[in-house]
């Protein structure tokens, strides 16, 4: 985020409580029309950046993608129809991770499980069967699911 030099100010950068228009546009609380007479807030020096969910959810932005799921086969894992999944392709698909996989050219989301040297794709719903990965299958892990975003508000997905 850029700061503007203040005309006539000895600072080359704006002091941090002087929020730039970009800050305001992002909805970050701001003192807005500063440089008014009066007492500065005693808390101004203690202001921290707001919590940034991007940096919480995305560790590797070049490799992270978001997908939306439809269907019930992962409900037992807490992934419900309409949810968003954060997928990081830079994380190696280890045993017991939830992955976006490609099976015969189609995307699916399953828990990747290794049992007795075999790989399985396990659904999170007893109505569906696990799939054992055979060597001759067209199978590929597309990315590892790191988070699910679910809204509890009625009528709002993700």
């Amino acid at each position: 985020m850029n700061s503007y030099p203040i005309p006539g100010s000895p600072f080359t950068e704006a002091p941090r409580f002087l929020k730039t228009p970009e800050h305001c546009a992002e909805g970050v609380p701001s003192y807005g029309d500063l440089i008014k007479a009066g007492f500065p807030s005693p808390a101004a020096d203690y202001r921290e950046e707001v919590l940034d969910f991007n940096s919480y959810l995305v560790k590797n932005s070049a490799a992270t993608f978001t997908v939306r799921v439809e269907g019930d086969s992962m409900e037992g894992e807490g992934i419900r129809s309409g949810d968003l999944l954060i997928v990081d392709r830079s994380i190696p698909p280890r045993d017991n991770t939830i992955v976006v996989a490609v099976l015969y050219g189609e995307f699916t989301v399953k828990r990747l499980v290794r049992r007795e040297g075999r790989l399985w794709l396990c659904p999170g719903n007893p109505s569906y069967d696990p799939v054992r990965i055979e060597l001759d299958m067209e199978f590929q892990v597309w990315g590892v699911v790191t988070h699910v975003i679910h809204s509890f508000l009625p009528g709002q997905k993700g």
Partner: protein
Amino acid sequence: MKTMTALVDCNSFYASCERVFRPDLQKKPVVVLSNNDGCLVAMSKEARDLNLPRGVPLFKVEKQLEAAGAAVFSSNYTLYDDLSRRVMNVLEGFTPQLEVYSIDEAFLILQGSREQLIDQCLRIRKRLQEWVGIPVSIGIAPTKTLAKIAGKIAKNRPDGVYMPPDGQWASILEKTDVREIWGVGRQYARKLHGLGIHSAADLMDQEESRIKKDMTLVGLKTLWELKGRPSFTLEESPPPKQGIITSRSFSFPVTEKEDILEAGSDYASGAAEKLRSQGSACRVIHTSIMTNPFREGDRQYARGMTKELSFPVNYPPAIVAIVRRQLEELYRPGYRYKKISVFLSEIEDAGKEQLDLFHQKDSRRESVMKAVEEINSRYGRQTLHCKPLRLDSRWQMKREYLSPCYTTKWADLPRIRLGAPLGRPERPEK
């Protein structure tokens, strides 16, 4: 320990981007169309194997593509731009010395022994495939010009990485046509061929003084680069394209003069924007207009007009005004127009434009344009524009085969179906 230049080049970039979210297309021919769905501009390897001529109009090969089970896409620059940014981010993780040369190419400066360099590039390639899903080839060489040549060879290797051993270069350069050398234009290549200079090796046999006389300093630097002496530093390249063309076909026949003028203004302002973005100005503006030669019943008309200025311009309102005047003259009523093009040429650096005695550089224009550009970069393109731009959809591009903007729009996120209907176990069909 050597310092070398690596050219990382994304394979069939646009087609590869379309595949990232369409794994079903992994082995199918994929083609991407030019603006307005006119011609084929990008093809996956499978599509190239169909031997379609490059740049062929879609309608000529539609049946052939369908028979081959090819997937056809309009160009989705939003998607390509996002994936390009990701590719470049990953590359920045390997070296801070990097030049993003185009949407799908970057030069990297790398250090190490031959084995280390090859190993590092294999890791770069693997990481881009894993993290972003984009396949690349990498050529490694002592200079940028040679890295371009090595990169072409790398494309045909299964491991996608090629660093010619020192002893190999002589024979490679003998087999490299001058036309394939970075920065040698088609016209100049023809001239060289006429002089009996066919290969890069032939060119290297020439006297440096002669090259400098014929090809200026850029040519001389190219020659040094071929000889292995780095002469183009990062961010320094042979000069950009000699002309800027904005040419589009209408998605429906246009008959009214007002409509022609508006569309023409739109293209002129697009071309002017490009000109400014590369820091150039032009001296020649060529505008042309034509009907659709493929509509046999229609009366045909095609004409162009060239305006040579005594001073270079890059002020969009000036360029728009000239193009409008040209179109006023070119327009004839009673025809169904298909296409307008605006071509800006005799391009030179805006900084070193020669000032005509009678055309003092107007600094007010510069400050107006600076302000306009700043506002547009902050609040979005076309927030401010220099003409009555009609923002209705008629002049917008025709994009019938547009893929979703998978990475930049909430509504376009990839959708994954989880599970077949209840009770039917999910099994892949073979």
